[in-house]
């Protein structure tokens, strides 16, 4: 699984950090940092939630 971010759409809302804080973090500048672009399978559910919750639909998963 690989996390894809459309950086044109990302606005740093932080919903992804809220549901998957081990994978996503919003830094002090308010920008998203993907801590782990290729998380293990055990994180899939959290990542799928992050994709679903992103208000700007900036996230997707590539298998």
């Amino acid at each position, binding site marked *: 699984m690989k996390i894809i971010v459309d950086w044109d759409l990302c606005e*740093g809302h932080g919903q992804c950090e*809220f549901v998957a804080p081990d994978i996503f973090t919003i830094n002090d500048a308010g920008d998203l940092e993907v801590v782990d672009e290729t998380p293990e399978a055990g994180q899939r559910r959290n990542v799928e939630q992050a994709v679903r919750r992103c208000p700007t639909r900036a996230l997707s998963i590539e298998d």
Partner: protein
Amino acid sequence: MSEAEDFAKFIEKFLGEVPGGVEGDREMRRRDPSPLVDTTAADIRPDNLSDDQIQSWFDYMAWNLWELIATRSTEGESGLIPRQEYETLSFVQQWSVNPNAVRVITDKVGVDGLVELGRVPRREIGTKLNHIRNYASSLMAVLGRGVCVSLDQLDPGVRREDVRDCIQFARRLWHGTWGEGPGLASGRGFALPLLEDDVLQPLLAAAKPFADEEERNAFRRFNATTELFGFLMHYDTRLGMGDTGPYPLPGGGFALIRDHFLNETGYPWSEIGEGLPYAVTEVLVFKPDPIEVRINDIGTTFTKPADYLKSLDRVAVFARDTIDTPMSEIRLVDHDERARIIRACEAGVLKMYKMLSKLDRDEKIRNGVRMYSHEFMRPLAHRAGVWDDILAAGFDELSDAAREAWPILSSPRAAEILAPVFLLGKGFPPLRNAAAV
């Protein structure tokens, strides 16, 4: 057909038959040309409703609810807050306590007073007397009835007067907001252009273009930060936000008016909002770019293309400092204060994460039940001056029905109950009694 294909059919169309969007509303009106979700000045007055009228409301609302769920209007699960669990337990709680609460409010202000309460979203910003709550105040309780029937706790024919009173309460509010005709965004082309022109125009006039890209980015950060904070203050729900619009502009373009509710008192975690305004309101003016805008009954905006904020041309931010601050004292928020609000919200988010990490699951569910039950009734009851009376009558005491439902609705088995309630119309079981009350 495989189970997955079967399920997909019910996601694609309500009951496998009725699409979403305006097409779906058109089909529902073909089936029932005068659904009870439409109001007239005359038909909001009687306290009685016939079984056919109640069924008409049920039928349309079942599609309307499916439309919200199927179009990804809600976020689904969260690992940190057991939202699905507390929401559905709150439905059951609201079925227990809301009917009496709506009668207390109605007795205090009368039908005309409810119509006036319904008119508030046309005249005010930064208020929770908004369409979302007018929409959901009775829907939540009626869904609670549906959940109880699904759990075999309740015969669908009992407490008919409670169903009736909840429906008419909502319809009276809707009439105040919309006047004659459909009382829902789904019946009005999925738009919520509620503010009257004399309220809207000064807001639009205050909107200014961005001086540079840095200022644009600062605003986008303000929008994102206050949105997330509003989510957490409202225990991971959209109750902390709400859009109205689109408001078409002369010469093209449109505006959205967006509330983020930041400082809601009365919850165990409310301290995270200390020092923040009760609400901030963003005036968002967009260039005349080709953007399709859709706003649903919970005030959620969907656009095509999704990156609509690229077309943002001018903005203003207003603050309502407390729940009781009159509209005449709504004030502009300058850049320095926006930066302070961003910092306070970011600190509040971290504080909330820490608070949540110390709570066990049952505590979070109890908190969520209380928050969710309060949010749909408190703003109306507070404005009517009867919230303390409603609380004193036991609004917060977990009802017997909610206690009985707790083990199932807080377990993984809840999904078996909820999918049919949300997606297959099981939230609105017909009444059996054919005679009008």
